[in-house]
């Protein structure tokens, strides 16, 4: 380890040191308020360090982690999502008995795992990051101390995610068997090039991508998603839908960029099938949902399906940085609108209630009872639909432009059809919210100031980046090194 290593690792060291600090804090002085403050401070320090280091040249640390603008952008996204989750969770868990402090410790640990995946340049780093993230999530999903649904969801996620991790690990082992290396750049270089049709190599890639498809909940591997999203506490669901998927996507995109794995026809065909199935399947399955959390779960399946267009473009486009730019812009939009939608569910729920505010009845006439919540939810849903003047439109526009440049017409048709179906179920929630009357039987918990403040900020940024996206786009372009940004 040399000085430059420490400088490049500064955001990681801040989070890791923060974890130790929070752990000691929880052992000696239990106070939710102090814990929340410290969590936010630690994450903000790390975010600041990410911002400071964003212009530095790429730095590879012993072939293990590659710290560059790409990793920094993803890290910033994960840290922001973690801050939002921490603030939302505080109001959600208020008034509940039991120990709440570990929630924040696990949340920061999960963020560290996600950040590791974003910079991973070695299969061992991928696996360690993934497991830190997943193990923290198992507990976060089953965090509530009362009731069956969280534990059921946690157990489902534990078993299925464990199997998926094992599948990925076995795939990595087979790839190592075929090539003799675990480092991405060596996998991509011609010195290590193996006959690409070698059986072990292909079987390894296949198993690896099956595990990834599970973690991203792409359609043939999506069965767990609605149950886990419904059972998990609402703030955790938001974190699960954004950071967990974002981290896996950050790894896949980097892996595809460096090793050029999508140049293998079989792999890109399989991913194409996953993408089309996810776009159509996710949206069709969401149509009949009366549960808002399940509806958003299916919608997130469809959205990751859209995102695969950018991933597949890596194998098609000559300049793969365009695909990276599209992916990151899309993910920024996806993070914001998903966090906003689950955020509204969170502020309308409380962990002392039997279930979260997830039935669509809880939203009947919401506009007349909680106008601000309803407005933010409407914005988030419009953005998820991809209506102009929201960030969702900019994000989808980017995907379509990338897809058109790569001539991926089948995928674009699937995107258009999927989005058309999606209008129906997003609009249904909006119509229900503006209906007069109804919902009187439903009592919402009292207003949570910090939760609402966060939501207002996200809601405004949804519109702001939709109306005036150029600062965001310029920032992304300059960070990943597109000239003239």
């Amino acid at each position, binding site marked *: *380890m040399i000085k430059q290593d420490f400088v490049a690792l500064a955001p990681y060291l801040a989070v*890791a040191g923060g*974890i130790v600090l929070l*752990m000691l804090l929880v052992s000696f002085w239990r106070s939710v308020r102090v814990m929340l403050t410290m969590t936010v401070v630690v994450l903000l320090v790390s975010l600041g360090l990410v911002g400071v280091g964003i212009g530095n040249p790429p730095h590879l*640390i*012993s*072939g*293990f*982690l590659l710290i560059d603008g790409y990793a920094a952008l993803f890290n910033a996204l994960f840290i922001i999502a973690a801050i939002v989750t921490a603030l939302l969770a505080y109001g959600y868990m208020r008034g509940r008995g*039991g*120990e709440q402090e*570990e929630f924040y*410790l*696990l949340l920061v*640990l*999960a963020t*560290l*795992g996600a950040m*590791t995946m974003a910079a991973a340049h070695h299969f*061992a*780093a991928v696996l*360690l*990051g993934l*497991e*830190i993230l997943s*193990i*923290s999530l*198992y*507990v976060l999903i*089953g*965090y509530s*101390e009362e009731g069956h649904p969280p534990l059921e969801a946690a157990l489902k996620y534990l078993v299925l995610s464990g199997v998926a991790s094992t599948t990925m690990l076995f795939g990595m082992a087979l790839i190592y068997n075929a090539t003799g290396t675990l480092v991405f750049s060596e996998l991509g270089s011609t010195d290590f090039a193996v006959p690409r049709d070698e059986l072990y190599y292909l079987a390894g890639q296949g198993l690896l991508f099956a595990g990834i498809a599970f973690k991203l909940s792409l359609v043939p591997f999506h069965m767990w998603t609605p149950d886990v999203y419904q059972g998990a506490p609402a703030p955790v669901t938001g974190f699960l839908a954004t950071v967990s998927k974002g981290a896996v996507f950050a790894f896949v995109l980097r892996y595809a960029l460096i090793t050029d794995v999508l140049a293998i026809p079989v792999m890109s065909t399989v991913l194409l099938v996953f993408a089309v199935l996810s776009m159509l399947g996710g949206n069709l399955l969401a149509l009949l949902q009366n549960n808002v959390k399940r509806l958003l779960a299916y919608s997130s399946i469809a959205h990751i399906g859209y995102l695969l267009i950018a991933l597949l473009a890596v194998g098609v486009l000559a300049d793969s940085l365009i695909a990276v730019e599209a992916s990151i812009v899309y993910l920024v939009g996806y993070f914001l609108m998903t966090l906003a939608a689950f955020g509204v569910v969170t502020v309308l729920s409380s962990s002392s209630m039997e279930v979260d505010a997830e039935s669509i009845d809880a939203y009947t006439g919401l506009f007349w009872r909680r106008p601000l919540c309803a407005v933010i939810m409407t914005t988030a849903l419009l953005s998820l639909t991809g209506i102009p003047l929201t960030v969702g439109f900019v994000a989808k526009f980017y995907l379509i432009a990338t897809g058109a440049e790569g001539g991926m017409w089948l995928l674009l048709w699937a995107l258009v059809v999927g989005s058309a179906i999606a209008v129906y179920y997003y609009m249904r929630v909006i119509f229900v919210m503006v209906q007069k009357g109804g919902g009187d039987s439903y009592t919402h918990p009292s207003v949570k100031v910090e939760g609402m403040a966060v939501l207002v900020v996200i809601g405004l940024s949804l519109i702001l980046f939709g109306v005036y996206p150029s600062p965001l786009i310029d920032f992304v372009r300059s960070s990943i090194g597109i000239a003239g940004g």
Partner: protein
Amino acid sequence: MEVVLFYIAASIALTTSILVITRTTASHALIYLIVSLLAVAVIFYLLGAPFAAALEVVIYAGAIMVLFLFVVMMLNLGPSQVAQERRWLEPRMWIGPSILTLILFFEMVYILAGTPALTSGVAVSAKEVGERLFTTYLLGVELAGFLLLAALVGSYHLGRRYMRARREEIG
């Protein structure tokens, strides 16, 4: 000759793994699991990884035994279950695992008595593993520490609920 040794160990590992998932009682399955792990340890040794082989025996076979003991202790067995336990562990049960373990034992004696027999041709000593872990893979070791911390905090939180429920049940 090494290849024959490998195939014997590999077939024992496969057979016992299948037996693990087909046994109906947990204790029988566990004994086969230990034999399976011992067979994998022999394979590691043949591959030239004596350190990994030792870890396989110490951590997997050893730790899983201890874990199983803990589970049995926490289950609070009554007299009827003790009788049932005794039935599970009757001598007939031990024949299969003993034979397989004996085969592995003779393999080990053969390997240790002769010149180092390796399928890969290169042996990696524990020192080399240690050097690698604390230079190239230092970050990995640190991250593994955080992985364990996450597991520790998580199991503490989930276990506390269980312990509290138990306490309420008792008094």
